[in-house]
């Protein structure tokens, strides 16, 4: 197991290095950072233009391979280059990762718990009306793009605010600008801003978790050890909880670990719609501003996150399920 894990991690590190270099090359080829400075009035002096481009390490006159090497050796020393506003990318990433985490953590945990409960409930009450209602609802959520759910909720929130004549739910940014007050005012303000994005996350993640959990649970319900537990006198509920749900949660936990990595990429839409300045937003805006260093840095961050979470999900699986440990 240990050797296997080490080999796996080495392979992942190589993959990350190549993937982020690839992202850098792709970004350098498709983005044109010079365009921002050309065509200005008065025109930018060519000499200072060269200086600016060299400062960011994006001068198109320098061969691409040399720029790549410069960027990569910087990354090895923890220097991710400068963003377009001259802030170091590493600091930008830390700040924004924290914001993304605030946005994602609560919603994805509630969503996972709700999904598990709904999945177990659906499996136990298979074919009943409640099961098919949950199934159809999850199909509808699947068929709705995240941003559409978000905007529908915004319409509803605006209608609600108007109906009660008071700004109860706010949904732009992380907190109200210039708010002052004690801890509770601050906290309440942040909670009000978190409400809608969290609902969206809960809906989308509960939809997928409930489908997955229902399938796993149905597998478990047919297993012999459930019948054994019933035969030795356990009540139906105890057999389901102690022997059914606990086993069915093993694949779920690995699924959760894995999807948390990919969630950050998927949450970019949520961040844009609700104007949160997180990691996903960084990537999309940096492409619009032709910020090559920010694109490469955020892609590297995402790749590392995905690889960490898939390693974590493998380790978790081995730790929880004795059958794969050997």
């Amino acid at each position, binding site marked *: 197991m240990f050797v296997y894990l080490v080999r796996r991690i080495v392979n992942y590190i190589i993959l990350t290095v190549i993937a982020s270099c690839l992202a850098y090359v792709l970004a350098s080829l498709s983005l044109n950072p010079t365009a921002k400075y050309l065509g200005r009035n008065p025109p930018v002096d060519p000499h200072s233009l060269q200086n600016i481009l060299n400062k960011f390490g994006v001068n198109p006159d320098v061969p691409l391979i040399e720029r790549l090497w410069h960027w990569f050796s910087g990354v090895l020393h923890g220097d991710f280059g400068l963003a377009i506003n001259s802030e170091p990318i590493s600091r930008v990433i830390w700040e924004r990762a924290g914001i993304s985490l605030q946005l994602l953590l609560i919603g994805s945990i509630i969503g996972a718990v709700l999904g598990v409960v709904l999945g177990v409930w659906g499996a136990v009450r298979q074919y009943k009306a409640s099961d098919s209602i949950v199934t159809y609802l999850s199909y509808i959520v699947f068929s709705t793009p995240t941003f559409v759910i978000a905007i529908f909720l915004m319409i509803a929130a605006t209608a609600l605010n108007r109906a009660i004549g008071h700004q109860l739910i706010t949904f732009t940014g992380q907190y109200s600008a210039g708010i002052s007050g004690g801890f509770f005012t601050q906290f309440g303000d942040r909670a009000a801003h978190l409400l809608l994005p969290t609902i969206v996350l809960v809906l989308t993640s509960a939809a997928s978790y409930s489908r997955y959990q229902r399938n796993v649970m149905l597998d478990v319900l047919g297993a012999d050890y459930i019948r054994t537990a019933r035969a030795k006198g356990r009540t139906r509920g105890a057999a389901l909880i102690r022997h059914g749900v606990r086993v069915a949660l093993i694949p779920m936990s690995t699924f959760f670990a894995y999807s948390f990595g990919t969630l950050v990429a998927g949450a970019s839409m949520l961040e844009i719609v609700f104007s949160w300045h997180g990691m996903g937003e960084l990537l999309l805006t940096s*492409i619009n501003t032709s910020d090559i260093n920010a694109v490469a840095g955020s892609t590297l961050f995402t*790749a590392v996150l995905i690889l960490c979470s898939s390693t974590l999900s493998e380790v978790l699986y081995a730790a929880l399920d004795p059958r794969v440990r050997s």
Partner: protein
Amino acid sequence: MSLSETLLAEEPDAALEPELTPAEQGRRKPLSRGGLIWRRLRSTPRFWVGVGLFAFLVAWAYLGPLVYPYGPDDRDIYNMGMGPTMMHWFGTDSIGMDIYAQTISGLQKSLVIGLVAGPLSTLIAAIVGSVAGYLGGIVDKSIAWVIDLLLVLPSFFLLVLLSPIFTQLSWVFLTLFLSIFSWMIMAQVVRSQTRSLKNREFVKAARFMGMSTPQIIAKHIIPNIASLLIIDATLGVAAMILSETSLSFFGFGVKPPAVSLGTLLSDGTGAALTRPWLFVFPAAVLIVLLFAISLIGDAFRDAVDPTSGANRG
């Protein structure tokens, strides 16, 4: 996986076969696998709901414009920013474009993109996966490694990154790029299926009879995973429409003057709170379309593999 086991089973479980009427039992002949799947599919209400909705949307997309006076490019300068009326069924936007006509035009574009990109990505997955699984060795290793590499970078990010290139071209290239970045997971499934098929007797026999590798893959491997591929292609249509919509919504996909459901939603978002018809109608059409496709794909998956999804028990 239970999925692969069922797909590879020679004969489906007798208990899973549908009940036969006495008349049917009289002229009973061995049921082919395709016949069995069709029989199960036919008795799934979800399948018919999905097919009905989808057929309605396709018919609407192509017949709808015939009976409606406004085209997607027409401007009615006397009725700008109007809500739904008898004249403009879905209302008009701030420059007098008719939303009903635009929604139909966007629906056509989204349908074409989905129906081309979904099957295309399945095709890539089938070819890459079966070649890797069948040849094994260094080819398999390198293909598996490329798949891993592409999975590390989220495909949405890759598409956004490449969007400066393909938005200058046309939406046809968007369709191609969508399928180029979405075959990886299916290719892994095909690869593992092929690896187990490769050592089956009928494949060995074909090999010893001197069939070439491409022939074996085309005649023996692909037909044996056909049902899996059809499911993937169906669900792929929905996935591709979803990706296209999201990309266009954020300005990385279809660019004006071309219209898709994504660009319509993107245009309507700003006014979603004040003039909801700009957003709600295209959004509703999109949701119904994706819902219909997922019902079809899911019913098909249950018919192929009764031990998965809603049909089992």
